[in-house]
Structure formats: C-alpha cells, structure tokens
C-alpha cells in the first residue's frame, strides 16, 4: 500500500499545485507585445518597482501577439511597433498612444569610403532594395556622392528575415518615396523582397553587414551604434542632407501628425521638415477602453516613465517623445478620465 499512498500523494500534490493561486496583495501589471522596446520597458519597470513597489511584467512576444492579446483582453496593455489604424482601434474598443521613438538607419560596409560619410536618398535606396542598382559605382550613387571614390563592386542588400516593426517602418518609407516599390512590394512587418539576403533580427543584420564587405542593410539606430557600423546620411523630403542622431529623430517626431483624434495613427517617415531624419517610427501602447481601473494604473506607469525615464531611454539609445507629444498623450488620458 506504500506505493499507492505515494501515488495518491503525488496526485494530490499535482492537483493542489495546479489550482488557483492565492490572490496577491500586490497588484501586477501585465503587458505583452513588441520586441523592439522591450529593453526600455524592462528597465523602466525595474526602476518603477523600486520606487512604487508596483510590478510591471512585460513579455516581448512580438507586435502581432501584443495586438491579439489586448483584443482578447488577456493582458493589461499591449504594445506594437506598427500603429493600428483608427478604425481598427475603434472597432476593438482600444486606446492607443505612442511610448517612445526609434530611428532606422542604413548601414554599409564599404572599406574604401570613410565611415558615416556616404549620402543616399529614398529613390536610390529603393532601387538598391529592388535589385536595380547592382554595383556601388552606379551613376545614381555617384551623383549623390561627388568626389567620393566608389568601388566597382557588386552590392548586396541585407534585410530582416523575421517579421519586424523595423521592416514596417523602412518599407513604409520606401512606399512613400518610390512608386514602383509601392506597386510591387508595399509595406508590412514582412514583405516579399525582390533582391538581397535575409538575416535574423537587428543583431543578425548588424553582424552580417559588419563582417561582409560591400553589403548594405537597415537596422535600429541603437544597433548601428553598438556595433560601430558605418551609417549613411540621407537626403530628406525637403532635399536636405541629414545625419541620423537624436535631434533629427526628434525633429521628425515633433512635426509628424501625431494627433489624439486619429489615435496617434501616423507614420513618421519622409517628414517634410528641414532637419528631420526620414526613417523614424514610434512604438505604441494599446489599452482596453472599458477597463478603467487597470488603465489608471498603466497610465500612472507611463506618466512616471515620461517624467523620469528619458535618461534611461537615452542610455539605451531610444529617443524619448518630444514634450508636446507627451502633453497630447496626457490630454488623451484626461479625456478618458484616466489621468
């Protein structure tokens, strides 16, 4: 009978172990979604916990998963790198606002050209990724870089093989500046690439470009800095040549049409402003409209982060939202009685 009682004990242990846990006295906020802002949300959450003893648990399961989970109301907030369209936000009874900005930069490996000096424009980048420009010394690149000694080497574009918000921002920019791209490829988290080679993740693209001469890829700004890759300057919508840096990303965000009425739905790509970097994107937070009490807690967290988290964001190479956008978000919260 010893075995039987052992077995019984084991079964009881299993059943009790799987049963409902005791209600915790401490409130935990659960969020899920985009991978791009994960390092920032995680460090905000840990600092917030130190100050308020409120836990924010963020799972970076990807934007698609974040959207799905908030629609099914299984998390307290969702996060996505690609904004939902206003009608989708309304259909699913959500509240949407941006949390932080990131810039996408083009990185090259050109041993012959000094780092961070090559100039490109939208049309040229489009032709490169369509496979129409096949060599570094093609007339289009030469015209943008007079006097630069461009090698006559075949050019390999590198793109993200996995679905990603970075790809969505980059391809949205190409859709805006290049009719052929808009017609043949379009924009999205994964698209049907016409030329080049896929690498997995920002780190995959960064690594591949770093060690393979004559490649060009696109990565989040932070990855270009961390891997000390050579980025390119870009000719923006008004024809100025701009450098990727915090101020040019912020400039783009300040003049982008981030409007609460449209649930902040916009693309910060190809902004017509003097110093604006052309490929910028925001990452968004989604709330379930009817859950007022929970939302108040989530809003408290993000308000705290907007007030105290900018330096943390900068340390991790994210770009904090401009103050006027933060003010607009606070007004949106107020209109929902959350702030």
């Amino acid at each position, binding site marked *: 009978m010893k075995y039987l009682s052992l077995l019984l004990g084991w079964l009881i242990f299993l059943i009790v172990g799987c049963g409902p846990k005791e209600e915790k006295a401490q409130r935990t906020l659960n969020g899920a979604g985009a991978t791009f802002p994960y390092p920032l949300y995680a460090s905000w959450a840990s600092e917030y916990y130190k100050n308020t003893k409120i836990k924010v648990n963020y799972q970076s399961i*990807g*934007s698609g998963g974040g959207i799905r989970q908030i629609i099914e109301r299984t998390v307290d907030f969702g996060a996505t790198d690609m904004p939902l369209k206003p009608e989708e936000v309304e259909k699913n009874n959500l509240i949407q606002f941006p949390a932080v900005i990131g810039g996408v930069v083009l990185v090259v490996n050109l041993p012959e050209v000094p780092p961070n000096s090559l100039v490109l424009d939208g049309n040229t980048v489009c032709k490169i990724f369509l496979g129409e420009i096949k060599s570094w010394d093609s007339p289009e690149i030469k015209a943008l870089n007079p006097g630069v000694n461009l090698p006559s080497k075949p050019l390999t574009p590198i793109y993200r093989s996995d679905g990603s918000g970075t790809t969505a921002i980059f391809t949205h920019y190409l859709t805006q500046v290049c009719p052929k791209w808009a017609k043949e490829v379009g924009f*999205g988290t994964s698209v049907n690439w016409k030329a080049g080679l896929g690498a997995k993740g920002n780190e995959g693209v960064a690594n591949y470009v770093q060690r393979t001469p004559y490649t060009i890829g696109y990565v989040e700004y932070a990855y270009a800095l961390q891997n000390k890759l050579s980025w390119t300057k870009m000719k923006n919508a008004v024809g100025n040549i701009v450098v990727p840096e915090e101020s040019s990303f912020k400039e783009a965000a300040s003049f982008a049409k981030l409007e609460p009425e449209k649930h902040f739905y916009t693309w910060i790509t190809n902004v017509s402003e003097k110093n604006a970097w052309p490929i910028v994107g925001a990452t968004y937070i989604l709330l379930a409209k009817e859950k007022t009490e929970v939302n108040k807690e989530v809003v408290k967290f993000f308000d705290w982060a907007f007030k105290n988290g900018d330096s943390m964001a900068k340390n991790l190479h994210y770009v904090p939202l401009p103050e006027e956008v933060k003010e607009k978000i606070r007004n949106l919260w107020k209109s929902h009685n959350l702030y």
Partner: protein
Amino acid sequence: MTSSFKREIFFNLAYLIITFLASFIIIFLALGIFLVLFKEAYPAIKTFGFLGFLLSTEWDPVKEVFGAAPSLIGTLITSLLALTIAVPTALGIAIFINEVAPSFLKDFISTGIELLAAIPSIIYGMWGLFTLAPLMAKYIEPFLQETIGKLPLIGKLFEGTPLGIDLLTASVILSIMIIPFTASVARDSLALTPPVLKESAYAIGATKWEVIKDVMLPYSKLGIIGGIGLSLGRALGETMAVAFVLGNVNKIPTSLLEASTTVTVKLANEFTEADKDIHLASLFYLALLLFIMSFFILALAKLLFLKIERR
C-alpha cells in the same frame, strides 16, 4: 482468497491502467496537435485549397498570397543533405568506437558525442552564424567552387556568390546536430553483435574489415536504420539552428549556395509578427503540412524497416 492474492490483482490492474494511459496520452496528444493545427489553418485551407497552397511559390504577406512549395522543398533538401553528410560520419564513429579504438579512447569519444547531443540548438544557430558562416563564405565554399564546381552537372549546384548564409551551411549544421543520434544508436547496435559470430568469422580467416562489413553491419542493420529515421525526424523539425543561417528567402533554390527557407525557419521568423489573420493561418497551414510530411516520411522509414526485418 488470501489478502496477498487480492493485492496482486490490484497491482496488476493498476500497472495495466497506468501503462495504458501513459501510451495513449501520446496518441491523444498527437491527435490533439493535428486537430488544433487543422482548426487554426482552416481559413488558409479555405482560401488557397490544398494543391493551390502546396504548389504555389508565392509568399507575400502584404498582398496576402501564400504558398508552401519553397518551404517544403527547402525542408527536404536541408534534411536529406544533412543525412548524406551525417550517416557516413556517424557510421565511421560507431565502427571506430566498437572495433578500432583502444579502451581508454572509447569512453572519451562516447562522452564527447553525447555532449554534442546536449547542446541546445540555438547555440548551434549562433555558432553557425558567427563562426561557421564566415568560414564557409571565405574558405570552404570558394574551394568547393574551384574543385567540384568545375564538374559538369554537379557544378551547377555550386553556382553563385558564396555568402555563407545558404543551404550548404544549414545542412552542415544540421548534420552536426544529428550525428550524435545516429552515432549513438549505431554504436549500440554494433555492440550487440554476438561475440560468437565475430569470433567464428575471425576463425575462418576473415580480416577485421571483413568482419565489420560482412558480420557486424548486416547484423545491426535494423538498429542503424532506426537511428537514421530518428535523425531524419529531428532534421525535419529543427528550427533555431537553421533559422540563423538560411535567410528565409522564399524561392525554390537552384544551387546549394543560395539562401532558402524551410517550414520551421518561416515559422520562427514570421510567427511573432504575423498581424493579419490569413498570414497566421497560412503559417499554421505550413505547420500542418510539415506534420503530415514528417508523419509520412517516418511511416515510410518504418515500412522499410519492417520489410528488412522480415527478410
């Protein structure tokens, strides 16, 4: 009826029920997975049909057109190529351990191989991307192009710019991953050859090589084939190791030096960010096809196995 007899009956019954449950849980699990995959894939099945999805080479999430041919072909090519590299190597290892190696080396090598099996596949993937791919691109692939690449017909398989992210690199990594399975099973099967058989062969003047070739290998054929089947199953389903070095390029490859994709690579790359329902359903559809394909390939291996056994 004595109480000990009663207890006997009780225990027999308990064992019967427990073992029955244990084995049936597996069958129910497999069935459950199949049903869930089917249910989730249903929107895509309805939209693209069976042959339409199977034969289409399109994969365009923006225009919402999906097809499975390149992924399935990529899966087959990488798995079969990995087997061609792994099986001879694994057999060599097994024979060496059983017949050639001095006893102190036997344990050493056996442990080494088992350690290889314990490495998580993501480590293989990262090692492949950071170490193997550059080596392949710089030395091995140009060398292959200079030698085998010059031959007629086979040369076609080595055309293109060697970039390191391609079918060949992926297959090499896969083969390293499945060698431990094949080698361990082959080693154990070879070791099961009765010493009497070997000694009789030696007694009539057979050389060591003849004993291995004519006595041990035929005797352990079944076990070795079983090991190969096990490895094939692993190769078909392997995800992370290949996801890093295959590039997820959706096109039917014509050369081994081309980036390609497999079902699992596509799933790992696109599942998390698939924000359209039909995209997600198509990914589930791919998974369902892989499930069915693996089932049939393993069934075929089993059939072959039975046929040899009967002989």
